[in-house]
């Protein structure tokens, strides 16, 4: 009798408690943002600063501003281990929580989510990665990859190499090798490099490296034999560290070795040590952590003991990139709140916010970030066409320094390629491209 009574009381407590939690949740209006992150596994060294950058910025908005226009942001991480299958499972798990955007942080996961998100009405924001032709917003209504894409990046790097050689015409006859991660991500730049090779007359060698890239001797033997003038690296994780060490080992001139924006981080430079001095990499944001926005994160997040990582790692390349990713998401939420007159936004509304992203110099300054060019996204153009910076590693100071101005992308070549690929995708998937003149 006593046992039954106790059980009944316990059950009632659980029920009441459960309702109380539900009521509290319902009373507090929140916006849910899932994060597909990887803090474990072979790619964790790159995943950790990225996850920290996202978490810290959303935390800053809650702590400093009380949320996006007063609505708290709930950021929840799901560990993918940089595994596409697990990433898709994370997405399925989060779907019922009505996320306003999904940030896949993996080109492989992005490819898998592209057919799912139009049905679920959740925009995908794959900032500077994922499927390049998703930049054609007429076909890929729910996918955004601004401020720039792999194809644009490749063209900007060719532009930069041209400038180093005294002009684009001087590229004729030069040898450029592309060492790439043998995955959807690594292969993205190949079509652009091939098209530009035919147009500009440089010789191109494509060298694939299998996951994880711990062993690359065959690749570097071929480099030794072919003797390229420049090497472009599209690596990730241990592949970058080994490539840098091999290049340094064979004495390849580091200032002619240029990584893409996932191959130029502080994490990559440790093992190569002094041998990495002078190595260059593309980026779409300045390095360092001295902006007002960084100061705010130190003050409002780390000052309160809420930081996701170590305070001294604020400003690292991957941290800044993820922080920028979060900045774009929050501004899209704010734009959607204003446009639709709501506090808690839906995925559809934030999709509109992303599509109407417009960052002017004044807006960057207001956000506490300086030195960024204008970004304008539209119904047709989900990329924004952002130019690309080249940064260079100083092994003594262990810092990245800006080594170029903003290198323009070759829009006249890249945009037709994007439209052709998007049209092919539309045909294969029975998608009728949107008429952007009729869009709001």
């Amino acid at each position, binding site marked *: 009798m006593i046992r039954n009574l106790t059980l009944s009381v316990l059950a009632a407590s659980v029920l009441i408690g459960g309702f109380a939690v539900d009521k509290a949740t319902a009373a507090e209006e929140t916006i849910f943002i899932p994060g597909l992150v990887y*803090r*474990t*596994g*072979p*790619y*964790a*060294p790159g995943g*950790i600063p990225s996850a920290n950058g996202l978490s810290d910025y959303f935390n800053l908005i809650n702590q400093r501003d009380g949320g996006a226009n007063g609505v708290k942001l709930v950021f929840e991480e799901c560990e993918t281990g940089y595994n596409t299958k697990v990433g898709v499972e994370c997405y399925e798990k989060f779907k019922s929580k009505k996320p306003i955007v999904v940030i896949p942080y993996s080109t492989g996961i992005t490819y898998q989510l592209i057919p799912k998100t139009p049905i679920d009405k959740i925009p995908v924001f794959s900032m500077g990665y994922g499927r390049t032709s998703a930049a054609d917003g007429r076909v890929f209504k729910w996918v955004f990859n601004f401020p720039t894409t792999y194809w644009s990046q490749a063209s900007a790097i060719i532009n930069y190499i041209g400038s180093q050689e005294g002009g684009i015409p001087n590229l004729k006859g030069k040898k450029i090798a592309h060492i790439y991660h*043998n995955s959807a991500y690594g292969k993205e730049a190949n079509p652009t490099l091939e098209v530009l090779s035919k147009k500009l007359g440089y010789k191109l060698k*494509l*060298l*694939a*490296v*299998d996951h*994880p890239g*711990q*062993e690359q*001797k*065959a*690749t570097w*033997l*071929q480099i*030794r*034999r072919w003797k390229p003038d420049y090497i472009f690296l599209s690596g990730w*994780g*241990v592949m970058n*560290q*080994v490539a840098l*060490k091999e290049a*340094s*080992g*064979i*004495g390849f001139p580091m200032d002619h070795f240029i990584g893409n924006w996932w191959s130029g981080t502080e*994490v990559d430079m*440790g*093992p190569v*040590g002094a*041998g990495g001095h002078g190595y260059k990499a593309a980026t779409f944001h300045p390095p360092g952590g001295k902006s007002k926005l960084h100061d705010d994160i130190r003050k409002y997040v780390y000052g309160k003991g809420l930081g996701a990582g170590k305070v001294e790692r604020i400003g690292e390349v991957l941290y800044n990139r993820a922080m920028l990713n979060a900045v774009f998401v929050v501004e899209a939420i704010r734009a959607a709140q204003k446009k639709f007159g709501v506090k808690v936004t839906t995925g559809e509304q934030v999709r509109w916010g992303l599509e109407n992203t417009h960052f002017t110099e004044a807006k960057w300054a207001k956000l506490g970030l300086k030195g960024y060019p204008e970004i304008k996204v539209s119904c047709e153009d989900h990329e924004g066409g952002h130019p690309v910076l080249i940064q260079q590693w100083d092994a003594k100071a262990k810092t990245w320094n800006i080594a170029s101005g903003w290198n323009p992308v070759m829009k006249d070549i890249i945009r037709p390629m994007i439209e052709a690929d998007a049209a092919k995708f539309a045909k294969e998937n029975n998608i009728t491209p949107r008429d952007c003149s009729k869009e709001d």
Partner: protein
Amino acid sequence: MDLWQAIVLDPILDMIDAPEFLAEVFIGGLMSGVMYSLVALGFVLIFKASGVFNFAQGVLALFAALTLVGLMTGTVPILLTQVPGMEMPPWLAIIITIVVMIGMAFLVERIILRPLVNQDPIIMFMSTIGLAFVLEGAGDILWGSEVKTLDIGIPNSTFMWADIQFQEFDIWAAVISAVMVVFLALFFQRTRVGRALRAVADDHQAALSVGIPLKAIWVVVWSVAGIVALVAGVMWGSKSGVQFSLSLIALKALPVLILGGFTSVPGAIVGGLIIGVGEKVAEVYWGPLVNGAIENWFAYMVALVFLLFMPQGLFGEKIIERV
């Protein structure tokens, strides 16, 4: 005809045209093979002594390297803060890491192996999968997931000899592996413990019945495998930094083991060299025909061919079971 030209004639003519480059590819393959052998040796040791394929060998290498770097940099486990003045010289850190690996061998024997005496090999294998997950998690909690630079003074420079480029790092790896092989061969062939190890591998019950202390033997063999893992972890970690992808080097050892035999120390070395040379030659001369990146699957394909004709590998023991 074009296909014949592309697949057979062109690569062979290319080799003939540039023999010094072929020699460089060959030597590069040998050097890579030495690194694969280092990993394969750890597998062979445990398989010889217990008939168990140790799935955790790659993670053992990772864990040993993490411990070594942690000690060298004066890092406090779990807190991950570096205490100035607590940095250890490499020789001291190596000794302490060896002690840690021996301690781990005791724990493995006590917690995992002892309760599983006389169980089917598949059950022992499953237990090593569990061990791999535990060690990987423990490594993450104790030492963190960041890439750690490991510098024990092995130079990374190159030198030319007879128009062939050599990397000093590779030469060091070859010398260290050679020393390891000699040491292990003497240990197995010339010591009482070594002979006891082989007896245990044949039959746990029979070894016990003639007075061989099974528990002590397992501790010894896991300790030696831990030390081999440390050497492999140091060599691979010096190239790429110590990070969790190190655990994947085990994948490089599998074709080597199939080729060389699971029970042969010389087999691990010869198998490593054949795989190393084979995959480099294949990648450089035939890779471009299929957009490259063939070396990983090529190694497994070679192993598969060997499995068809020599299931026990080049040097493995022929297993004959009476029915």
